[in-house]
């Protein structure tokens, strides 16, 4: 059968029409006509992306019985999908179409009309050459499972579970420790209005426990998670009794493993663990929360306290974001209990990111708390007295004494993050927190479709930020994993030819997604179609030419290149 190639040039209003000679393009492209093998139909249109333009295209495809379609218009980023959808309205496979960008790559960058026209022709010829080597691809549909696994039952995990669980969606909430609620249950009060945490967190815990669509597993870990977005096979194991396992399937996974505090013993100059009456912020919170008191080891309330921020900040290489605010809170606890107490807060940088923070800082200052910005700091003991020796920003060295010292250690990723990352095939970044798909544009997704990160698992976060993440993940999953709706996985992916594969496994080592597995029986590498994202790295690395990138085959690229430079 002969190729019937339709080439349609879009005027894009004046954008293309004024900058290139469309008439000349159509004449030269029509000259490529080689009947009966290759029939080229070249036409122009005012605006192909308009409804009228799309109808025109669909009509042309049907009327001319086109086997291939080339559109010379804008960037594929603008209208690739538009024109693929036009193909879908007809019998033409959308992968037998090619969009040639003569607007951004010709019309808009080349002032000389002749030159722009020549490049456009060259470029369209390359497109025609490529399109005839393209193959039809079929989008497959896969059943999806609407249920979700949430790892970690802190405030982020709890909120994520609540926003996801519903009549047609079960949530499996897995917690390593023996109770749910996480770090928040250890605080006495929650910023910014200093209400007690119990009202908020206990109510959430109760709602989770009462929700019949949420199954809570405490003292449990995830042992295995294999699969892809819409269909992960999960195995849980009980930490106390490893034989006790539970298997089920979910469509998505939410990682809400939270944080741990940096151990200040690792920096000896703070004296933690060696000198009496030096506490971490969490120890103070717990004491206050359980007994309502903050006392020295002697049982007396302190007459003076030094609060040191930024413990481990330089060592970890990041600001933990939440400490400044809770240190103001601790200062206020102490002031409420002993109004005459002398409090000094030492900080390297103040971090006041939220709208209520500045006011809280000023309020704390107004209550008589001193703030000192330090360059260096160390805690020293002489007989029974403790001193803070510090260098101020101007280089002056000073010291003060304090009965109680409270440290704000850096927020660290939760213990076991590395194991979870390996289990789910996602990455940790250089700070040890889970790596997001994009720091700015996609902060709760990961490199693996269907695996999300929320709360402090991604970055040190306060409660409202964690809640935001948890509610956002609800949105992400609810819109993508709709009960009964099938998933359409990416079709532009790699495939490995059984006959050519020598089993060297080079492709396995370059794949960022673990999308290729080795079939021991057949001694060949195999692509898991549901996981592959189609980058083509394995194809470029394959020494035996067994790997192919669908829609970006070597032959297709060669044809495009050779025609472009002819």
């Amino acid at each position, binding site marked *: 059968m002969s190729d019937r190639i339709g080439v349609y040039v879009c005027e894009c209003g004046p954008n293309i029409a004024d900058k290139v000679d469309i008439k000349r393009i159509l004449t030269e492209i029509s000259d490529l006509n080689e009947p009966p093998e290759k029939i080229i139909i070249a036409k122009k249109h005012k605006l192909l992306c308009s409804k009228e333009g799309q109808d025109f295209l669909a009509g042309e495809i049907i009327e001319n019985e086109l086997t291939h379609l080339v559109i010379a218009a804008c*960037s594929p*980023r603008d209208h690739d999908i538009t024109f693929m959808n036009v193909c879908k309205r007809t019998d033409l496979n959308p992968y037998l179409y090619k969009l040639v*960008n003569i607007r951004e*790559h010709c019309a808009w960058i080349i002032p000389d009309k002749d030159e*722009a026209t020549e490049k456009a022709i060259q470029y369209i010829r390359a497109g025609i050459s490529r399109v005839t080597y393209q193959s039809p691809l079929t989008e497959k549909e896969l059943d999806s499972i609407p249920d979700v696994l949430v790892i970690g039952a802190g405030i982020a995990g709890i909120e994520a579970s609540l926003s996801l669980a519903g009549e047609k969606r079960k949530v499996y909430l897995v917690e390593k420790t023996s109770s749910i609620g996480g770090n928040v249950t250890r605080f006495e009060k929650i910023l910014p209005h200093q209400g007690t945490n119990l009202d908020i967190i206990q109510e959430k815990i109760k709602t989770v426990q009462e929700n019949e669509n949420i199954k809570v597993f405490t003292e449990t870990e995830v042992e295995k998670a294999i699969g892809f977005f819409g269909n992960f096979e999960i195995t849980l194991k009980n930490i106390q009794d490893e034989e006790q396992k539970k298997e089920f399937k979910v469509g998505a996974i939410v990682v809400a493993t939270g944080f741990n505090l940096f151990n200040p013993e690792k920096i000896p100059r703070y004296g933690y663990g060696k000198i009496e009456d030096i506490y971490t912020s969490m120890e103070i919170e717990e004491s206050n929360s359980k007994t309502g008191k903050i006392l020295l080891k002697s049982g007396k309330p302190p007459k003076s306290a030094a609060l040191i921020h930024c413990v481990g900040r330089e060592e970890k290489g990041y600001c933990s974001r939440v400490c400044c605010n809770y240190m103001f809170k601790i200062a206020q606890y102490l002031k409420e209990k002993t109004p005459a107490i002398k409090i000094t807060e030492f900080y390297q940088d103040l971090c006041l990111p939220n709208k209520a923070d500045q006011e809280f800082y000023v309020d704390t200052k107004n209550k008589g708390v001193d703030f000192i910005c330090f360059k260096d700091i160390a805690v020293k003991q002489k007989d029974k007295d403790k001193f803070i020796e510090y260098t101020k920003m101007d280089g002056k060295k000073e010291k003060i004494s304090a009965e109680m010292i409270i440290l704000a250690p850096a927020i660290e990723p939760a213990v076991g993050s590395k194991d979870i990352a390996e289990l789910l095939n996602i990455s940790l970044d250089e700070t040890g927190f889970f790596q997001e798909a994009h720091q700015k544009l996609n902060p709760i997704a990961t490199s693996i479709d269907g695996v999300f990160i929320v709360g402090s698992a991604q970055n040190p976060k306060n409660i409202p930020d964690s809640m935001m993440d948890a509610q956002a993940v609800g949105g992400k999953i609810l819109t993508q994993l709709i009960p009964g709706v099938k998933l359409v996985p990416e079709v532009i992916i790699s495939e490995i030819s059984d006959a050519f594969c020598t089993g060297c496994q080079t492709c396995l080592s370059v794949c*960022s997604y673990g999308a290729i597995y080795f079939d021991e029986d057949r001694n060949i590498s195999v692509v898991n179609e549901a996981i592959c994202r189609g980058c083509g790295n394995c194809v*470029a690395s394959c020494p035996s030419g067994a790997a192919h990138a669908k829609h970006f085959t070597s032959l297709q*690229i060669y044809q495009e290149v050779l025609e*472009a430079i002819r």
Partner: protein
Amino acid sequence: MKEYKPKIVCFLCKWCTSAGADLAGTSRLKYPASILPIRVMCSSRIDPMFVVKAFLNGADGVFIGGCHPGDCHYHEGNYHTRRRFAMLTKVFDTLGLDSKRLKLSWISASEGTKFAKVSNEYTEKIKSYGENPSKWNVFL
């Protein structure tokens, strides 16, 4: 005499450099018609053979554009590109081809200006070298 217009094949990754090239266009920046962009999903798709083949079949220069290290849409693809490029440069020198005519540049989706600048400078450089002497002379 007609001005010598080099032919430069540009392999651009879909996510960063290709988008940067689009931005150069929407910003109405100017760069020579010599630049012929070929879009691939990731710079790591670029088999060194593509470059060799383009070089022997009429290209005066080959330019590979990818996301900045650490920003690859596919996480580590561009690191592989970087290694392959280093290897390719060596192979070029070994074969007696001109490795100065190869270029690798990291250009993000927001760097339209950088794309235009690199395109202009690189075209000037290739122009100063003159026509690629290896084209049509070696068959592979």
